[in-house]
C-alpha cells in the first residue's frame, strides 16, 4: 500500500499503528493508519472504502423511483434529510408542486430525525471519552423519536418515507400527541444532560482546546454542519437558501467560538433545542389538505439540476443529469462527512492518541455515508 511505504521511509523511532476498521473508536468501518511517536500521532492517513456499495452507480442503472430506498442507507443515522434531498431534486427538475401539508410533515420528521442523530452522535462521543452511561440516557430519548416515526414511516432507521410530490402517508393524531409529549419531556432532559455531562470537569478538560478548527481551515476544507458552525461561521442551508417551508419558522443558528471539540458538542446540544422550536411551530401551523400530489411525468427531462439540504452532519447536495429517459444519466452525491473527515489530518497531527479519539469523535462521522 502506498501509504505504508511513505511512512516507512521516515524516522526509525516511529512506528505504524493500524486503527480500525474494527476499532471501537472508529465507528463503522473507518480505518486510520497512524504513524506514532510514542503516544503522539505524527502522521494520519484515513483509508476509506470498507463500506462502499456503489450507490451512485446504482442510481444510474435503474429508474429513478428505484433509488428511493438507497437514499436512506447512506447516512443511516439521519436518513430523512437524505430522502428529502432526493425527492426535492426530482421535484425541482420536473417542476412538481408539493402540497403544503406534506412540506410541513417533511420538516417535522426531518427535524425529529436530526435530534435523534445528534443524540446518537453526542452519546457515542461521550462514550469515546470513556463515560459509558450517557449514551443510554441519550438512547432513552432517541427511542421516543424512533417509536413515533416508526408508526408513520414503517421503519426505525433507514427511512423511505418521502415521495416525489409529498410523503407516503399522512400523520395522525397519535403521532402529534406523541411528538408534543416528546418535546415537553425532552425540554426537561436537556438541562439534566447538561448537568451530568457538559458541566463535568473531566469532560471539559478532555474537550476544551482539543481539535481546534479555525474558521479559515473549515472554509478551506469545505466543512459544513456543526463542524463548521462550531468554528463560528453561521452557515446553514436552512437559513441561507431556505428549502421546503423552513422560511416559515423562527429559529436561530447556534455557533461556537473557538472551534474546539467542546464547541462542536455544544452546537449539537443547542441545535437540538432549535429543532424542538421548529417542530413545535410546525405542529402549531400544520395546514389541512392532501399529502401527496399526483405526479404527471415519469420521465426525467434532459439537462441537469442540483439540490442541497442540511443534514445533521452538514450540507448534502444531489446533482443529477438526465437524458430524457426514466434512468438518471448521472447522479452525484456530495456528502458532508467526507469533507469533515478530510479535516482530520491537519487537525490531529501531533496529537496524543486520546485526543485524536476525542477530536475524531467530535466530527460525528458516519462512515457508510462517506463510502456510499
Amino acid at each position: 500500500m502506498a501509504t505504508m511505504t511513505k511512512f516507512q521511509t521516515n524516522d526509525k523511532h516511529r512506528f505504524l499503528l493500524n486503527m480500525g476498521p474494527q476499532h471501537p473508536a472508529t465507528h463503522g468501518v473507518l480505518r486510520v493508519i497512524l504513524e506514532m511517536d510514542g503516544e503522539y500521532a505524527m502522521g494520519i492517513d484515513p483509508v476509506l472504502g470498507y463500506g462502499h456499495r456503489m450507490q451512485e452507480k446504482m442510481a444510474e442503472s435503474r429508474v429513478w423511483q428505484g433509488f428511493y430506498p438507497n437514499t436512506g442507507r447512506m447516512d443511516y443515522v439521519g436518513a430523512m434529510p437524505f430522502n428529502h434531498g432526493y425527492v426535492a431534486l426530482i421535484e425541482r427538475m420536473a417542476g412538481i408542486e408539493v402540497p403544503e401539508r406534506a412540506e410541513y410533515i417533511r420538516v417535522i420528521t426531518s427535524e425529529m430525525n436530526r435530534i435523534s442523530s445528534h443524540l446518537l452522535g453526542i452519546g457515542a462521543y461521550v462514550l469515546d471519552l470513556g463515560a459509558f452511561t450517557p449514551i443510554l440516557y441519550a438512547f432513552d430519548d432517541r427511542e421516543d423519536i424512533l417509536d413515533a416515526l416508526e408508526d408513520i414511516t414503517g421503519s426505525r432507521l433507514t427511512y423511505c418515507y418521502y415521495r416525489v410530490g409529498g410523503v407516503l402517508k399522512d400523520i395522525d393524531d397519535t403521532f402529534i400527541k406523541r411528538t408534543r409529549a416528546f418535546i415537553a419531556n425532552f425540554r426537561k432532559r436537556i438541562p439534566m444532560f447538561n448537568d451530568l455531562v457538559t458541566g463535568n470537569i473531566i469532560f471539559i478538560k478532555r474537550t476544551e482546546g482539543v481539535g481546534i478548527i479555525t474558521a479559515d481551515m473549515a472554509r478551506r476544507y469545505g466543512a459544513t454542519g456543526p463542524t463548521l458552525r462550531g468554528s463560528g461561521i453561521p452557515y446553514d442551508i436552512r437559513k441561507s437558501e431556505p428549502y421546503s417551508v423552513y422560511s416559515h419558522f423562527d429559529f436561530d443558528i447556534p455557533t461556537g467560538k473557538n472551534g474546539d471539540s467542546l464547541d462542536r458538542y455544544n452546537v449539537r446540544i443547542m441545535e437540538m433545542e432549535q429543532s424542538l422550536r421548529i417542530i413545535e411551530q410546525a405542529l402549531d401551523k400544520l395546514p389541512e389538505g392532501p399529502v401527496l400530489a399526483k405526479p404527471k411525468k415519469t420521465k426525467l427531462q434532459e439537462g441537469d439540476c442540483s439540490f442541497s439540504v442540511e443534514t445533521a452532519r452538514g450540507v448534502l447536495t444531489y446533482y443529477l443529469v438526465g437524458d430524457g429517459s426514466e434512468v438518471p444519466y448521472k447522479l452525484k452525491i456530495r456528502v458532508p462527512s467526507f469533507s469533515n473527515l478530510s479535516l482530520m489530518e491537519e487537525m490531529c497531527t501531533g496529537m496524543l492518541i486520546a485526543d485524536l479519539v476525542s477530536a475524531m469523535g467530535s466530527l460525528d462521522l458516519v462512515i457508510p455515508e462517506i463510502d456510499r
Partner: protein
Amino acid sequence: MQQIIDMIQTYSLLRMLIAFLILIAIVFANAIVMGYLERKIAARIQRRWGPMEIGVQGWLQMILDGVKILGKQLIVPKDADRFLFRLAPLLCFTPVIMIFAVLPFSSSLYGINLNIGLIYIIAMASINVFAILIAGWSSNNKYSMFGAMRAVAQNIAYEIPILLSLLAVVLTTASFDLQKIVEAQSGLLWFVVYPNLFVAFVIYLIAGCAETNRAPFDLPEAESELTAGFHTEYSGFAFGLFAIAEYGNLFIMASIATIMFLGGWNGPFGLASGPLMGAVWFMLKVFILMLVMIWVRWTYPRVRFDQLMNLAWKYLIPFSLVNLLITAFLVKMI
C-alpha cells in the same frame, strides 16, 4: 473427626494447603459476587435491567459465564512469546491470593498474622505491574504494549501517594502489624475522623482507584483508545484470571482502606465485634467502599494520560507528603 482435626493441627503444611484452598475459593467467590453486583448496579445506573434470565434476577449469570469462559480456548497470537504469554495471567492472579492470606477479616479470622503485614501487602501488590507488563509485551500487539506501558507509568506514579498516605497511619500507631492497627481503632473513633488522616484517606481512595485501573483512571484498558489494552489478545480462562485478579485487587484496595482508616473489624460507635460479628462489619465496610468505586466508574468519563500523571505528581504526592509531615509533627507533640 477428632483424628482429622488433630492431623490438621499437627501438620502445618496441610493447614496451609487448606487455608490456601479456602482463600482461592474466597477470591473466586468475590469475583462472582462483585461481577454480578457491578453488572446489576451498572444496569441500574444506566436505566436497564442487567442480567435477568438465569436464576432469580439473574444471580446465576456470573457462574454460567465462568463455566463458559472455562470452556474457551486460549489463542496464542502468532509470534507471541508463548511462555511469558501464559505466565502473565498466573503472575497477576497469584499475588492476590498471597495478600488475602494476611488480611484480618476479624480478630481471630485470618490466614496468618505478620508483624510487617502492610509492607508485605504493598510488596505483593506491586507484582501486579510485572504481570501487566509481561502480558502487554508478550502479546506482540501494539495496543497491548501501549496498555502495558501506561499501566507501568501509572502504577509507579500512584504507588507513591498510596505509600505516603498509609505511612501517616503507621506513624500514628507505630506498627506495621494490621491487627495492631485495627486494635488501635477499637475505641469510639476510627482513624478517618482525624483531619490529617481523613486527608490521607481521600488521597488513598483516589490513588487506589488508579492503582486498580478502575475508571476514571482505567487508561491501561481504555476501550475507545486501545481496544482492550494489555489483555486485548487474551481469551478463555487466561482472560478470566485477569478479570478475577482485577476484582481481587479491588477487594484488597477496599480492605486496606477499611483496616487503615475505617476501623477494620470494629463495629461503629464501639459496638460489640466478636470473631464472627467482626467479619460481618469488615465485609460490610469493604463492600460499601467497592460499591462506591463501581458507582464512580459508571458515572465519569476517562481522564487523559498526561492529566492522570499531573494529578499524581503535582497534587497527590505533594499533598500526601505535607500531610505526612503534619502527622509526624502531631505524633511527636501529643
